[in-house]
């Protein structure tokens, strides 16, 4: 099921741009709204092929959200293409009141998630978006790990009853999946079987979880890997099963330590199956400009940090 072959890495924003070309042809009432970053969100091709169904509303994200909501009310399936910082913060209350409260079918495609906008710096690195979006009633939150899983998840998001926030990466991520793999919103995808610990990762961090898996294997530690592409609704069954069967969990996210995947998993574990948990995330700090991988190293999100977190959490469990 999982290949790590010579397939070319692709950013999920670019995969999004390709996916909407296909969806535009098959979903007649699909419309796309842009905020003057269409080359960056890869909606340019869509705008050329479907000019009447693409609206560039300028640098005005609050209005962009409202217009999308209005189009949803008029029977369309709008996709809002933006950056995660703007979609989740600049226009947050518009998302909440105009979309979530009336539960409208709008998909927010939020590029530049986490530290993937590396050298753009802090203004463009959304490290709070997942936590923020998760607190909104009626909102569904997704972050695909690669360009292949993006497509079926986007397709489902468009058909989903209610708003969906989909976080995308600026930078390329390796292709992890096959076209034939199946995905369902709200169902975690198990990428590796293992019994010593479970690594639960989201979005661009899934690639590093897989790398950590291989390093751990060299030490004789078998790690289960879950791709938690849907942060909300969280697949709590998969979390509980992992807790029961492996007894230790490390969550891995390109996000601040508060409110995101680590918090969501901890909520489930505390209530239903307490086991030691390690958390890979930004330590409540902004990052800085720099290459993505160097930032991961400096801010505690690298493969080495994951391996260390696994050692720590296993020690904690076995001390009991």
């Amino acid at each position, binding site marked *: 099921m999982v290949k790590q072959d010579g397939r070319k890495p692709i950013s999920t924003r670019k995969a999004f741009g390709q996916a909407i070309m296909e969806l535009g042809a098959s979903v007649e009432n699909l*419309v796309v709204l842009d905020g003057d970053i269409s080359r960056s969100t890869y909606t340019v091709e869509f705008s050329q092929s479907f000019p*009447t*169904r693409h*609206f560039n*509303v*300028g640098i*005005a994200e*609050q*209005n962009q*959200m*409202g*217009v*999308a*909501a*209005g*189009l*949803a*009310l*008029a*029977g*369309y399936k*709008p996709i809002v293409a933006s950056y995660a910082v703007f979609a989740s913060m600049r226009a947050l*209350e*518009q998302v909440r*009141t*105009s979309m979530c*409260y*009336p*539960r409208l079918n709008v998909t927010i495609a939020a590029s530049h998630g986490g530290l993937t906008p590396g050298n753009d710096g802090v203004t463009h690195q959304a490290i709070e978006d997942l936590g923020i979006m998760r607190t909104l009633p009626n909102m569904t939150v997704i972050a695909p790990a690669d360009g292949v899983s993006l497509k079926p998840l986007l397709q489902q998001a468009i058909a989903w009853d209610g708003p969906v926030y989909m976080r995308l990466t600026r930078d390329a991520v390796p292709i992890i999946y096959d076209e034939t793999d199946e995905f369902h919103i709200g169902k975690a995808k198990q990428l590796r079987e293992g019994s010593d610990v479970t690594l639960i990762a989201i979005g661009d961090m899934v690639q590093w979880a897989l790398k950590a898996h291989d390093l751990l294997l060299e030490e004789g530690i078998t790690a289960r890997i879950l791709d938690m592409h849907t942060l909300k609704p969280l697949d709590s069954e998969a979390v509980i099963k992992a807790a029961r069967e492996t007894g230790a969990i490390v969550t891995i996210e390109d996000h601040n330590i508060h409110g995101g995947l680590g918090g969501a998993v901890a909520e489930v574990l505390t209530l239903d199956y307490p086991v030691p948990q390690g958390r890979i995330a930004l330590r409540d700090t902004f990052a800085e400009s720099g290459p993505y991988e160097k930032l991961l190293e400096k801010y505690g999100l690298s493969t080495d940090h994951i391996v260390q977190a696994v050692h720590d959490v296993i020690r904690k469990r076995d001390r009991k």
Partner: protein
Amino acid sequence: MTTTNKELVEGLRVQAQHVREAILRMVYAANSGHCGGSLSAADIVTALYFHIMRIDPQHPSWEDRDRFILSKGHACPVLYSALALRGYFPQEELGTLRAMDSRLQGHPDMRKTPGLDATTGSLGQGLSLGVGMALGAKLGGKAYRVYVLMGDGETNEGQIWEAAACAVKYRLDNLVAIVDKNGLQNDGPTDAIMPMGSLAEKWRAFGWDVVEIDGHDMAQIVGALDEAKERSHGKPTAIIAKTVKGKGVSYMENVVEWHSGAPTDMELDIALAEIWKGR
């Protein structure tokens, strides 16, 4: 004005007083709510729901209906009154405003109240919704029109102007924005809280067709809205309606404190007497 028009306008005037009575009774029953901005908008909303808009109370979600968005959502007593009097739901239900399990929320919830086209109440968001709906009508080749009512204080919100620019870009001549210019906002006179200068010039500068009217002169209201219907030359219409906050009730008129708050027993009696004495 023809005889027919005179009758129409007279009928709407009376209807607007029924709407005002319903507003006062429902806010009294709820012991909270927003009288001032509801009463200032009563004539405009009455004209829309009892004459201008193509709607069918028996089929609230009829695809081709005209849409109305109360962007100044706190004035929902005026909208609930119009909807009930128009037959969208029983008038007795007006007494449940703001109560637990009521379909009439403190600010409009389109998922709860029959006849509501949008969920509003956070100022500044309604015009964007209207732009989206009007765009949708154009895209789908639909003839319906979209009306957005906002407050003059509400135009402090930057999002209004984002939407104003957007409506012009997409040539939304099926969109009408009405500013209920009552000159007062929550904390005081609009000129003191945040002077916006000439609203008419602002909308015009954005590229809208602008009409300035007396928002309590039913003939002018109907005239401006009818005229907007006739236009189809690629520009949205902004109607700047000069109104009086609390219109029709002497002790509420132009009194900042009546932005919100409920009348007492005695105040209600006086208010109802004044509304009908005015006839």
